């Protein structure tokens, strides 16, 4: 059940650098000071991993154990702070790498959760949280409503899809490499589909009236006028 990840070791360095760069650029555009840019870059680059390690309570977070990770995050912050205008031109590249890395983060977290000995459902949870946690901390620090929770292109859904795919296949005792590749593919497919066809994550769709009418607890006219009143009032 050990998850030797089917991707080269330097990829997580690239992922941290890219995450820190996007976070740092976001902070720079929001007009934060050097400390703010550094903090936001750190949290976007490695915040998800930090949340994962705190939740799993498996020793000191990897961020603190590996000074190299701190170096990459700080490098991203410095580039974003001083060369924002240039770095922002490479946004499509970050987007592509970010899409690719959703699956990577999910797999790293899921593998760690399995090593700790968690069952399938907690593993899915940890994988999803690790992939989306960085963006969440970034938005809290910048005092924005979390992008994660607003309707938009799939990100959290892609992470959830990847975590579910990996855990399901692994639970069905597929070879580890198959489930890992399938998970990364699931994340990429979900995200790219959403971007390409302009599908955004759904908001709540209220069916209470419909259900009440169907089971005969409310007649049509009253329901219609009430709905109308509510719409006008809004």
């Amino acid at each position: 059940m050990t998850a030797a990840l089917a991707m080269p070791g330097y990829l997580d360095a690239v992922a941290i650098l890219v995450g820190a760069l996007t976070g740092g650029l976001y902070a720079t555009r929001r007009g934060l000071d050097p400390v703010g840019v550094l903090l936001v870059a750190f949290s976007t680059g490695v915040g998800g991993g930090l949340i994962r390690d705190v939740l799993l309570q498996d020793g000191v977070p990897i961020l603190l154990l590996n000074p190299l990770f701190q170096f990459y995050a700080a490098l991203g912050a410095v580039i974003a702070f001083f060369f924002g205008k240039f770095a922002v031109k490479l946004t499509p590249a970050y987007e592509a790498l970010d899409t690719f890395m959703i699956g990577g983060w999910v797999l790293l977290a899921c593998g760690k959760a399995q090593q700790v000995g968690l069952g399938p459902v907690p593993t899915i949870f940890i994988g999803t949280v690790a992939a989306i946690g960085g963006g969440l901390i970034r938005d809290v620090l910048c005092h924005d409503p979390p992008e994660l929770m607003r309707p938009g292109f799939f990100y959290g859904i892609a992470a959830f899809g990847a975590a579910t795919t990996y855990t399901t296949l692994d639970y069905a005792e597929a070879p580890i490499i198959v489930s890992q590749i399938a998970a990364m593919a699931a994340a990429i497919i979900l995200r790219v589909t959403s971007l390409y066809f302009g599908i955004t994550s759904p908001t709540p769709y209220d069916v209470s009236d419909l259900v009440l009418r169907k089971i005969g607890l409310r007649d049509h006219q009253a329901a219609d006028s009430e709905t109308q009143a509510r719409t006008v009032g809004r």
Partner: protein
Amino acid sequence: MAAGSELSEIAFTLPTWTTYAAVAVSGLAGATYAARRGFDVVGVFALAFATGLGGLMLTDILLGNLTANLLSSPWFLLVALGAAVVGFFFAGLISRFDPVMVILDGLAMGFLCTVGAQEALKMGLAPSSAIFMGTLTAVGGLLIRDVLAGVAPQLVRPGAFIAVPAIISSGVFVVMVESSLDSDAAQLVTMATALFLRAGAYWFGWHTGSAGDLSARAWNFWSRRAEPDPVVVPDEFAEYFTDMIPKITDDYRPDSPQDKG
């Protein structure tokens, strides 16, 4: 682990109550802040606890020894509770002694830096991790306070030095301990550094600015263009860290009123 065992013998001569004093000062600042913002009794208590204990709690969570430090003795919670009570009833009096609070806050910040950095060094972590933990211990409470109070975190916004003293003094502490100087001296120097920077920010208005862009300058230099640089930057250090000289850039952003705190 030879270095680790050596470092675990870091013992400070400053008495134990110094930690409680640091918690009390930060808690008092948090309670006063809540009172000034017009929060109710629960708000005052929550912000006193968050500001006083938030940094230590973050450190303990990250290093994974929460029950070992903060919750093992009742005194941390009781001290924060006392700070909340005092802040609830005497907020007006305390805000009249702002300079005193700044001095105490600077000392508390320096002390908390040493506590966090020392915890990290004890666990055998790298110096950069120790600086990170020291900073987080010192300013984590402020971060949690602002998130709870629902304002944009002051910590990350341009304005008077908040995190800069913490980062610099953590760095001073780690460097002094790593070069195996006397740890008491290291602690005192750290507290003095934090106090100096914090007081300087209060009395001389040292503050951070937002990002200045060097892309065009770098490009000009790299491509050896002959045209003069359109952006006049008299002194880079002044611009990025003290910002006393007004910036002459096209995207000059005045501070929003919220940042004045």
